[in-house]
């Protein structure tokens, strides 16, 4: 290695920090100009880490289950009474549902109804939170030859979770419905009015742009709408809930804070999904 004179070396070492700060600005510009490059770098890192997180997740899940079990032991009696009452109620609802199902089948047979094709789906483990401070997303671990593609819709056993926005070779990132960039066309199930569900990085996304003359009712169910062909109609999203300040929010049915597995459905919809679909690109046309 060649030797530099001491003053030159001092001058160079003083220059490093300003040059690197300038490079940081350059990086921001590059990240804005070439979103695909940034996405590729991220997903390459996620691909390398996802298997490690996948291995780590198992013992951690065991530990969490043990803690949960210990906690459940304490509330065993109350839980039991509550569940008995709930079971009684559910039995009544089951009778109603079966009667309606039979009636529905009979009506469909009379109408020569063409049933919707059952969508294909894959199930994937949630291995890590992939949101950071200013986003809400999760990282999925998937095998190397997975059938996951961008725009697929993620559901857990209760309701809508989000959509696949970034895809690597062994991992995929799902933007949750609570993310600040998430806009989902929905229908209020009671009034059949359309609205937009806008995430705000909080636990409950906000309801926006419902038509005049309709007020979302507290406790009303909210399902997806097929508007903008980004989602199929009728996926369960959540329940309307008003805050103290009379803002209509939706309590998601999916347990977004403790996701373990999600099912990714391919409905073949690519409505709002440009090729560089990133966090900021899920806005359907807003309705007044």
């Amino acid at each position, binding site marked *: 290695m060649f030797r530099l004179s001491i003053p030159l070396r001092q001058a160079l070492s003083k220059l490093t920090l300003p040059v*690197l700060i300038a*490079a940081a600005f350059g990086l*921001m510009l*590059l990240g804005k100009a070439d979103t695909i490059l940034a996405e590729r770098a*991220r997903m390459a890192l996620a691909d390398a880490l996802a298997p490690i997180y996948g291995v*780590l997740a198992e013992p951690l899940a065991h530990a969490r289950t043990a803690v949960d079990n210990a906690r459940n032991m304490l509330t065993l009696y109350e839980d039991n009474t509550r569940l008995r009452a709930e079971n009684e109620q559910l039995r009544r609802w089951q009778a109603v549902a079966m009667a309606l199902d039979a009636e529905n089948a009979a009506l469909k047979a009379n109408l020569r109804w063409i049933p919707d094709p059952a969508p294909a789906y894959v199930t994937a483990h*949630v291995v890590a939170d992939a949101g950071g*401070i200013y986003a809400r997303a999760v990282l999925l671990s998937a095998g190397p030859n997975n059938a996951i593609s961008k725009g697929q819709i993620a559901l857990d056993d209760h309701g809508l979770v989000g959509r696949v926005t970034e895809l690597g070779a062994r991992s995929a990132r799902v933007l949750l419905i609570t993310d600040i960039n998430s806009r989902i066309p929905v229908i209020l199930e009671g009034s059949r009015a359309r609205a937009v569900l806008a995430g705000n990085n909080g636990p409950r996304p906000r309801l926006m742009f419902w038509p005049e003359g309709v007020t979302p009712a507290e406790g009303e169910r909210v399902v997806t709408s097929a508007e903008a062909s980004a989602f199929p109609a009728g996926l369960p999203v959540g329940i309307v809930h008003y805050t103290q300040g009379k803002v209509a929010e939706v309590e998601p049915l999916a347990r977004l804070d403790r996701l373990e597995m999600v099912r990714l459905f391919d409905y073949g919809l690519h409505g709002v999904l440009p090729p560089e679909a990133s966090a900021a690109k899920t806005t359907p046309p807003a309705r007044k």
Partner: protein
Amino acid sequence: MKFRSIPGIHPRPSLWRRLDMAARVSFPATTTALLLLVMSAPIGLPAQAELQKAAAVCCVFFWSLFRPGSMPPLAVFLLGLLADLLFYAPPGVTVLTWLLVHGLALRWRRSLVRLGFVLVWFAFITAAVGAAGLEWLMTSLLSFHLLPPHAAMFEAVLSVGLYPLVAVVLTRAHQGIAEPDLA
């Protein structure tokens, strides 16, 4: 790699000693990178993302102040880049804020190193609040969205609260495992 040279008699730099010294010199940057990676694993801590960033900014500040030779600007740059990729933040934002924190620590170094812990902590409060604010501003600008400011406030408060804890651990390391002269 820069080793601190103290005048006097030195043991012969054998291969093991050199490896030992290299490990000690690279300890701060390596452990900070490891901290970032481990904290992005699904540990299930409450407010994990905020905690991760707060702990890392404490490390960057501490090492820049007390051992800048082991936390050079290039290391700060690379750590920031790793953090940006792990956080899915717009690339460059964490790099910029951490480089500025590093620069501040270097600038205050001469006066702060001689002062007591509480004053260092006060200096860190300024740096951490500034860093969280700048990060919020840049992320908002780059995503064309006014992001909720309470996330930034929470992060600043968390890093300020976490600093004494991190400082206790890192002071130990500073005098022990990360000291190249002990090799």
